[in-house]
C-alpha cells in the first residue's frame, strides 16, 4: 500500500472535520470535529516522517497530542460553563460578542 494513501486519508478526515465545524451547531460535535482536524494533521505529520525517513514529524505529532489534550480540558470547561448559564449547547446562541 502506497504511503501517499495516508495523505489522502488525512485530507479526507480534515475535510470532514472542517465541514463539521462549519455546518453543525452543537458545540460538543463542533469540538469533536476540531479534534478530528487535529488528528488528520497528526496523520499527515507521521506520514511525512515516514516518507522522509526522519523523526521530526513523529515528534511534532506528540506535541500536537499534548496541546490537544490541554485544549480538550479548557474547551470542555468553557462548553460546560456556557451550558450551565444558558441551558444550551448551540454555538449560534453564544453570539453576544458582536455588540
Amino acid at each position: 500500500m502506497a504511503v501517499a494513501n495516508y495523505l489522502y486519508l488525512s485530507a479526507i478526515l480534515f475535510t470532514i472535520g472542517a465541514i463539521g465545524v462549519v455546518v453543525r451547531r452543537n458545540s460538543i460535535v463542533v469540538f469533536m470535529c476540531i479534534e478530528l482536524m487535529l488528528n488528520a494533521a497528526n496523520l499527515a505529520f507521521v506520514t511525512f516522517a515516514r516518507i522522509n525517513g526522519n523523526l521530526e514529524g513523529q515528534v511534532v505529532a506528540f506535541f500536537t497530542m499534548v496541546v490537544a489534550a490541554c485544549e480538550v480540558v479548557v474547551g470542555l470547561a468553557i462548553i460546560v460553563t456556557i451550558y450551565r448559564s444558558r441551558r444550551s449547547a448551540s454555538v449560534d446562541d453564544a453570539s453576544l460578542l458582536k455588540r
Partner: protein
Amino acid sequence: MQTSENLLWLIALPLFSSAILLLAGKRANSWGHIMGTIVSASTFTIGIIEFFAMQSRSEENRAVTQKIFTWISVGSFNVDASLLLDQLSICFVLLITGVGTLIHVYSIAYMSHDLDRRRFFAYLNLFIASMLLLVLGDSYLNLYVGWEGVGLASYLLIGFWNEKPAYATAAKKAFVANRVGDVGLSLAIMISFATFGDVSFSGMKDGVDQASSTQLTAIGLMLLLAACGKSAQFPLQSWLGDAMAGPTPVSALIHAATMVTAGVYLITRSNFVFDAAPIAQLMVLIVGGVTLLFGAIIGMAKDDIKKALAASTMSQIGYMILATGLGPIGYAFAIMHLLTHGFFKASMFLGAGSVMHGMKDEVNMRKYGGIGKFMPITFLTFGLGYLAIIGVPPFAGFYSKDKIIETALNEGGIKGLILGSATLLGAMITAFYMTRVVILTFFGNERWGHKDEPHESPALMLIPIGLLSVGSVASGYLLYKGDWLVHWLEPVVNPLKVHHKELLPPIVVSIMAVAVVLVGVSVAILKYRGEQPDKAPERVSVFTRAARKDLFQDNFNEAAFMRPGQSVVKNLLNIDHLIIDGMVRAVGSVSLSAGNKLRVVQNGYVRSYALLMVVGALALIATIWLITA
C-alpha cells in the same frame, strides 16, 4: 573709539519704567505718571551730560560706544548688541528726550481725566526706549530692533482708545503700512549681509568701495522703502492722517517730532550707501519732492485741525527727505530742519491739543473761530510755531527751510530748477494752509454753536508748549549761527567736506523764499477773511474734493492692493477648502465607508468565522499552488 557706560541707561531706564508701569497694574495709578516723567527727564539729563562731554572732546574723538553683549556670533558673522553715540545720534537723543520730557509733563494734565493714564505713560516710556535704541544702535540689526519697537509703541498709542472701532482700525492701518516699510529694511539688511558680510555702520562704510553699484542701489532703494513707511512718504503716506486718532500728545511726540523722522535718520545714517548709489539718491529726491507737494495739497483742504497738521508734517518731512537726497551737503540741512520742525510742530500739536481741551475735544476747525481772545497763551505759542513753520525770519523754520531751498536750487541745471521750484511752491502752499489753520481757529466769527466759552488750559500744559515755542523761535538761529550744525555733523555725514558752488547768492534765495511765503499768506487772508460758515462748503472744485479725500490715496490703495489681496486670499481659501481639505476628507470617508461595509462580516457567529478561516486557508493554498505550479 572711546567707550561710555552711560549709554545703556538711556535705554534701560525708560524700558524698566515701562515694564514696571505695565506690570504693577492699578497699584501704580497714583504715581505712574510721575515716575514716567521723572524717568524721561533723567534720560534727558544723561543726554545733556553726554552732549557736553562730547563737545569738550576733539572732533575725531567725539563718538563713544558701549558694547552690551555679543548678540550673534556665527562663523565670520558677528553682531554685538552695542550702542554708538556720535554727533548725529546725540542730536536725536536730545530731541527725543527733551521734547519727550516736555510732552510727558503736558500729558499729566492732558490725560488727567483718563482712567488709563498709567498705561499711557507706560507706552510713552516704551516709545522713548525704542526710539533711543533706534538712534543709538551701531548696526542695522540693532537699529531694526528699535525700528520695530517704535512701530509697536506707535500702534499701541494710536489705538490707545481702542474701544472706538475707528481708532483701532487707524492703529491697524498704521501698523500695516509700516510693515511694508519694515520689509524694505529687513531686505536691505539681508542684501547688506550678502554684499558686505557685515551689517554694522562702520563695517559697511569701510566695505563700500568694493561693493558693486547694483548692490548698493538695491540696498539704497530698500532703505528708501523703509524710510517711506516710517516717515509717511509717498507712496506709503496714507496712514499718517488716520494716526491722528491717538491722543494729541502722541501725535505731537511720535507722529510729528520724532518717530516719523526716523526715515530721515535712516537715510542720513546710510549716507555712505546713498552717496555711492546715484539712482537710489535720485529716487530719494523724487520721493521727497512728491511728498512735500502731496502733503501740502492735502493740508489745504483738511478741516480737522490735527489732520491739517499731519498733512503738514508729511510735507515737512518731504523737505527733509529731499534734503537728504541732495548728497553730503544736504544731510546737515535735513537734520537741521528735522530739529527745528521737532520744536515748532510739537508746539503746534500741543497747542491744538490745548484748543481741543478747551473746546470739549472738538477737532473740526469749522466749529472754532475767534478762540484767540479766550485762550491768549495758546494763541501766542501757536502763533510762534506758525511763524516758524511758514519760514518768517528770524524764526526757526526760516533758517532750516531756506537752507534746503538754497541747496536744491544750487544743484543747478534742470534738476536744480525742478527741485527749487518744488520747494518754493511747497513753501508757498505751506504758508497758505497754515494761515488758513490759524485764521479758522483763532480769528473770525465764533462758530462753536454752544454757550460754554472755551477756557485756557492749565499751567502744566502751557509750560511745555511755552518752552517748545521758545525752541521754535530760537533753535533755527542757534543751529544756523556760524554753520554750527553743519560743522558738528561734518565728520559723520560729510567727511570729505564737500561744498556746493553757489549759483545764486543766499540773500536772493532768502528773498525769493520770503516772497512766496508772503504770497501764500496774502492769498489765505483774502480767501478766509470775514464770516466763515460752520460747515465745510459742499460746492467746491474737483481739486478741493480730491484733496479732502487725500488725493484718492486710500481709494488707490484699496483698488490696487487691498481688493486684489482679498480676492487672492479668498481664492486661496477656496483652494484650501476644495483641494487640500477635500483630499483629507476623502481619506476619512473612504475608511469610514469601507469600515461600514466590512462590519457585516463581524456578525458574532463562531461558525461564520470558521467558514471564513477555511475559505481563507483554501485561498492561501490555491495561491501557493498556482504560483509554484
